[in-house]
């Protein structure tokens, strides 16, 4: 008798405790207003005032994190009275999270803005995980972005249709130590010759690593005569003619790679580590300013320089999107618009935080902003804007990328 009373009191305490803990902030979030895509910009700005916006993005770089937390957040608060909170999460993870929420019919989620591109965007758009076309709403998108160019209209060959706004552009570059080699190779065939003359001094991350996969696409670009066909829809017949040429070059290089090609670095991080240790003389990456950044922080030797191939290197854009169940879509729009402002984009270009190319069109900038842009120090290892933009090649479709990654494992990795 006594014992059951004791248990009862414990249970009642527990229930009281749990009910006291149900939070207020979550109950406040209401199912989002679908009308947001039809309301005008002034209304959006007014509604966003005093709200909090959650920005989910990859969080593995201190420079990028600082740019958001220390530069963007205080200014967003001051200008629009919107509080910005950054959450570090990989794109594949938040897409999975969204899918689960969609299946469970969760109408009010936690994420307002996502940093996304390529395959993840394609899945998100096809599965209906995104809010809808919103870029037309944004004044800065209308005023400063070249809305007609292909890298704004397509993301890895997939039509964007206003579902995401371009945040920045990156270009693939190779980095080398100029104290160890003077004439960097200018094409895949020159690279092959160089590798043969300098055995063990070059390697690339094993696909499906993002960077390694991009390196293999450069080989495809050099070996195929009709690269343009790969930008279109998936066609199996095209592959059958081309793939042997790609594997042939890579297999010819293989015995002269680091560790005779018996093992490859598993990630770009490992390749960079090899370069830092001086084991290999070249590294690479989908970020033209990364080498300068790493020289500045003291991780790369001071003599590091970058180069692109004569026929160009891959370039792509990355984007910002709003999920279908964003609790604060007004705030999300305000944040994205601010990130696309010349002010924020120019700061992003500065090596102080990030050093990345703008997504805005230089021709559309005011004369004042152009002057600021020219004065930005992008670091001694970063190539000039002209040299970069004259050597750009577009990305191929996502299915072809997957096919190359699988093919590499079968035809190069396992051999």
């Amino acid at each position, binding site marked *: 008798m*006594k*014992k059951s009373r*004791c*248990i009862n009191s*414990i249970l009642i*305490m*527990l229930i009281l405790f*749990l009910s006291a*803990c*149900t*939070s207020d902030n*979550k*109950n406040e979030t209401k199912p989002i207003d679908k009308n947001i895509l039809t309301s005008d910009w002034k209304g959006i700005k007014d509604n966003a005032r005093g709200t909090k916006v*959650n920005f*989910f993005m*990859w*969080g*593995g*770089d*201190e420079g990028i*994190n*600082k740019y*958001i*937390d*220390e530069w963007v*957040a205080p200014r967003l608060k001051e200008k629009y009275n919107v509080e910005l909170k950054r*959450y*570090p*999460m*990989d794109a594949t*993870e*938040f897409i999975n*999270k969204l899918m*689960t*929420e969609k299946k*469970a019919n*969760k109408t009010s*989620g*936690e994420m307002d803005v996502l940093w996304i591109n390529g395959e993840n965007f394609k899945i998100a758009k096809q599965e209906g995980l995104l809010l809808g076309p919103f870029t037309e709403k944004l004044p800065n998108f209308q005023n400063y972005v070249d809305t007609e160019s292909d890298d704004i209209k397509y993301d890895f060959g997939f039509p964007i249709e206003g579902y995401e706004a371009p945040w920045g552009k990156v270009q693939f570059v190779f980095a080398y130590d100029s104290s160890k080699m003077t004439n960097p190779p200018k094409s895949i065939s020159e690279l092959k010759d160089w590798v043969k003359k300098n055995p063990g001094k070059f390697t690339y991350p094993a696909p499906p690593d993002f960077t390694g996969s991009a390196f293999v696409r450069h080989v495809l670009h050099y070996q195929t005569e009709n690269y343009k066909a790969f930008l279109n829809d998936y066609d199996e017949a095209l592959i059958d003619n081309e793939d042997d040429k790609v594997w042939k070059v890579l297999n010819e290089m293989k015995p002269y790679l680091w560790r005779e090609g018996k093992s490859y670095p598993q*990630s*770009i*991080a*490992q390749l*960079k*580590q090899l370069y*830092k*240790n*001086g*084991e290999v003389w070249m590294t690479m990456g989908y970020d033209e300013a990364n080498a300068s950044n790493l020289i500045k*922080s*003291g*991780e*790369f030797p001071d003599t590091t320089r970058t180069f692109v191939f004569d026929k160009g290197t891959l370039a792509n854009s990355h984007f910002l999107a709003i999920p279908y169940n964003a609790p604060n879509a007004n705030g999300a729009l305000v944040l994205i618009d601010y990130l696309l402002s010349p002010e924020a984009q120019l700061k992003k270009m500065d090596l102080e935080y990030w050093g990345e190319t703008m997504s805005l069109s230089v021709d559309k900038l005011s004369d004042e902003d152009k002057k600021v842009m020219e004065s930005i120090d992008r670091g001694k290892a970063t190539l000039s804007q002209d040299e970069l933009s004259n050597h750009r090649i577009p990305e191929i479709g996502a299915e072809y990328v997957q096919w190359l990654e699988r093919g590499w494992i079968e035809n190069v990795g396992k051999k």
Partner: protein
Amino acid sequence: MVKKPLEITLIGILTLFILLPFIPLVIWSFTKHWPWPLLMPENWTIESWTYLFSISGRAFEGILNSFIVAAIALLGNIVLGIPAARALAQNEFIGKNIVFSILLAPLFIPYTISIIGMHDFALRLDFLNDYVSTAIAHILVTLPYFVATIWFQYRLMGKKLNEAASILGANEWKIFLWIEFPLLVPSFLLGSFLVLVVSYSQYLPTWIMSGGTLLTLPLVIFPYANSGNSSIVSAYSLLFFAPILLLLIIYFLLLRINNRKNTNESR
């Protein structure tokens, strides 16, 4: 206490084995560039540490969140674990072994399975505060450690003292407060220590229950784990270890105070 040379060397090797990996961590956290053949880096910097404690580094936020969750989880463990351990140790009933196995199940059921279930659970518990829903998941993971330690102490105690007190007219609460609890203290401290440390290092349950929005220390650290930035990763690892060390010291202090109190009382 005379120690044999063999014993001393064994302890020495063990200490080295545990301590050696910390040395490169400390060095790495103070430099950005430490190429392979060099014994020591050429340039030293405290940048990684200043980053950790900047707005972006979120060291304090991470530690604070971790401890709020761990404290709620400990509270839940006490409320659920002590009665469960007591019932299991002092009573005989049909299906006792089954109940005991179920309580210990989180230890031997593969993590992935319970996580999938938790995912569904998380969506239904959406009305709860992130701290509480995360702590519930942590209770699930930590309860076996707590119940097992408390259960063992109850078994050692037996029921005789309880029966004596009960004959003298003490009620259930008094027996617990004046007889059982003082005897439980050492295992209660150990169990609490385990709960706090295990909860503190959880990544997946936190991630799933909060949807990645409750930034405990493991969630703050994880994005850097694969970034190749050895300096930042080393600094975070050391930061992660510090509170555990602190807890361990607190545990030993409390244990010593308790022992001293007992010897004083028995004099």
